[in-house]
């Protein structure tokens, strides 16, 4: 059984998670929306409006973060824009809805988006390209705006009053936005998406009673529709939706994705009762944006330990950021997260060494960097054999080492060995993978090109 499981492809692994089967390891899905652009130096508004930049950025996510599953676009304003909401754009965040066309009318729209509307052509082209480029090994997510959140984009905050003042109108509006979600889901499935994520952050702001009264029926219909089309579904929510988890389960998605406001252990007790996969929930701000690489690894390890103590094979869990990653999340933190999911034992060693406080720095003797015969490249990796980003960093150094044919020296330090953790401390290396030249950190997480690395070496020789 274990052997069959370990032969699963990355995509197959994610599908196994969504089929609620036991897995050799937990799948990893980085929600890289606008953050994808940051990997290639593109702003959020560029990556959400320029097809080439979007695809280039998404491929970089696939390259650097080696996901089992990956969303193609993370923007909850695509449908709203088509249906008449004005957007305000930002350089480092998704756009915001600025106007609500139904704010002062009880009109029920009927128009459904066409494939040629708004930014759908860009999204559909990007989906087709990603399917061709990485779709054989990576499961791809199409994200549709959830019916309640889309209704709030159209109606504004009046939607909350409608629950008391105009309940029938609200039911009609949710039925309409559900039709929109079905139509857009169809387009995304035609473009090759494997999973449709229904992203409805606003669900956390209403009571289970209101959820059941206004949303249950339409959401159930939407997930059933996706299933009939032969695809998997996921129900993304943000905020403290603790009280709604059970009602969400009863709409029968294949997966529910939550953020750090929800206790994963408590939520999993509920989702397991319905045999629904739970996904989440690395904290976006405290951990991913402002935490260290070790903080992120520790969060993942603690989550795994809490969910599957002992040698229990994982089931019904996918690890992801709590929601769309902030634009400026350090690459190191995402790499560390991925490594902790893929190689928890290696990560455990690193975190334990960090926490022990007993690192013997005296066991490490450093070269006299001032007196080196040749420039020295020191490559610090989590483990280049198992961590893709570390492998790319090592490859970058090796290529230049070979190209310069004997005029530089190179050494790799994997932190799987405690003495190398001590060396990392002594050298002041904060994040992995990193390349140091003559004792100075020159490249951290972002893999340099041959030219950049050679220039840095030349600079060191001066």
């Amino acid at each position: 059984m274990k052997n069959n499981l370990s032969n699963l492809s990355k995509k197959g692994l994610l599908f196994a998670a969504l089929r609620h089967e036991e897995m050799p390891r937990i799948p990893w899905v980085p929600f890289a929306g606008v953050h994808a652009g940051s990997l290639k130096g593109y702003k959020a508004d560029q990556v959400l409006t320029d097809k080439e930049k979007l695809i280039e950025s998404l491929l970089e996510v696939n390259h650097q973060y080696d996901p089992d599953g990956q969303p193609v676009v993370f923007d909850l304003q695509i449908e709203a824009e088509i249906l008449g909401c004005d957007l305000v754009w930002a350089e480092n965040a998704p756009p915001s809805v600025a106007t609500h066309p139904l704010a002062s009318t009880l009109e029920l729209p009927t128009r459904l988006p066409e494939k040629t509307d708004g930014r759908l052509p860009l999204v559909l082209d990007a989906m087709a390209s990603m399917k061709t480029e990485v779709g054989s090994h990576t499961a791809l997510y199409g994200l549709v705006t959830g019916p309640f959140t889309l209704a709030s984009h159209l109606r504004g905050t009046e939607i909350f009053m409608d629950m008391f003042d105009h309940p029938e109108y609200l039911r009609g509006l949710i039925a309409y936005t559900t039709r929109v979600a079905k139509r857009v889901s169809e387009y995304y499935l035609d473009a090759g998406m494997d999973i449709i994520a229904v992203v409805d952050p606003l669900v956390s702001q209403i009571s289970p009673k209101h959820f059941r009264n206004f949303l249950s029926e339409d959401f159930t219909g939407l997930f059933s529709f996706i299933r009939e089309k032969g695809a998997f579904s996921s129900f993304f929510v943000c905020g403290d939706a603790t009280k709604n988890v059970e009602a969400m389960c009863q709409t029968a998605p294949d997966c529910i994705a939550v953020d750090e406001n929800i206790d994963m252990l408590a939520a999993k007790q509920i989702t397991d009762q319905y045999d629904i996969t739970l996904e989440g929930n690395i904290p976006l701000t405290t951990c991913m944006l402002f935490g260290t690489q070790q903080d992120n690894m520790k969060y993942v390890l603690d989550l795994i330990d809490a969910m599957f103590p002992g040698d229990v094979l994982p089931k019904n869990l996918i690890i992801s950021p709590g929601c769309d990653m902030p634009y400026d999340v350090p690459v190191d933190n995402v790499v560390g997260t991925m490594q902790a999911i893929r190689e928890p034992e290696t990560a455990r060693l690193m975190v334990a060494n960090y926490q022990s406080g007993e690192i013997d720095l005296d066991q490490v003797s450093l070269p006299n960097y001032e007196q080196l015969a040749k420039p020295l490249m020191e490559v610090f990796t989590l483990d280049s054999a198992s961590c893709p980003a570390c492998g790319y960093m090592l490859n970058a150094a090796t290529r230049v080492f070979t190209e310069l044919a004997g005029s530089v020296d190179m050494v790799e330090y994997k932190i799987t060995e405690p003495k190398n953790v001590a060396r990392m401390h002594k050298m002041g290396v904060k994040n992995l993978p990193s390349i140091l030249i003559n004792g100075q950190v020159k490249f951290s997480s972002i893999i340099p090109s041959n030219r950049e690395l050679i220039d840095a070496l030349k600079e060191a020789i001066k």
Partner: protein
Amino acid sequence: MSATIQEIYTGVVEGDRDQVVEAVQQALNEGDSAETILKQGMMAAMGEVGRLFEEGEYFVPELLVAARAMQGGMDILRPLLVAEDVEPVGKIVIGTVKGDLHDIGKNLVSMMMQGAGFEVTDLGTDVAPEKFVDAVKTSGANLVAMSALLTTTMANMPATIAAFDQAGIRDKVKIMIGGAPVTDQFAQKIGADGYAPDANQAARLALSLIA
């Protein structure tokens, strides 16, 4: 508590504006002062609404209709409170920071502040640092509350605090912050006076900051 004040209280908690308006008028006819109606009826009710919200019994819609019911009563009481010389417990300027258009949370805080007896100047969304400063100068507020929903607009919180420093009035106001990505740690880091994770705790924090 008289039966009529109890009716006002229940009307606010249950979000029934018509009931509140009718009962406020009746309480006035029965000789209750505007201050009594405000404090024993409406403010007490909003305290209960806040408690229910904090405990996860009430959600955004329940809070909004409760606040609307209170507003119905306040429309009648406001001129009478002025005539009775009833002072607000404090004056607060509130808004979302520059670049941030997300106002649901800010609106909830604003409502809970009014429910706690504050005079609120709501600057709305996307508020520039200088606008916060000007509003404090104009209104004489002793508190500023700002929110951000985005990790990217959080950066405008320290900029707003810096604007108060530059204007030389930082020591005249207490500044509190909130919003989904904001933490207590962040508040301390940027030199804010406090952080609250939800609307009810924001009202409690505001009261403690001016105590």
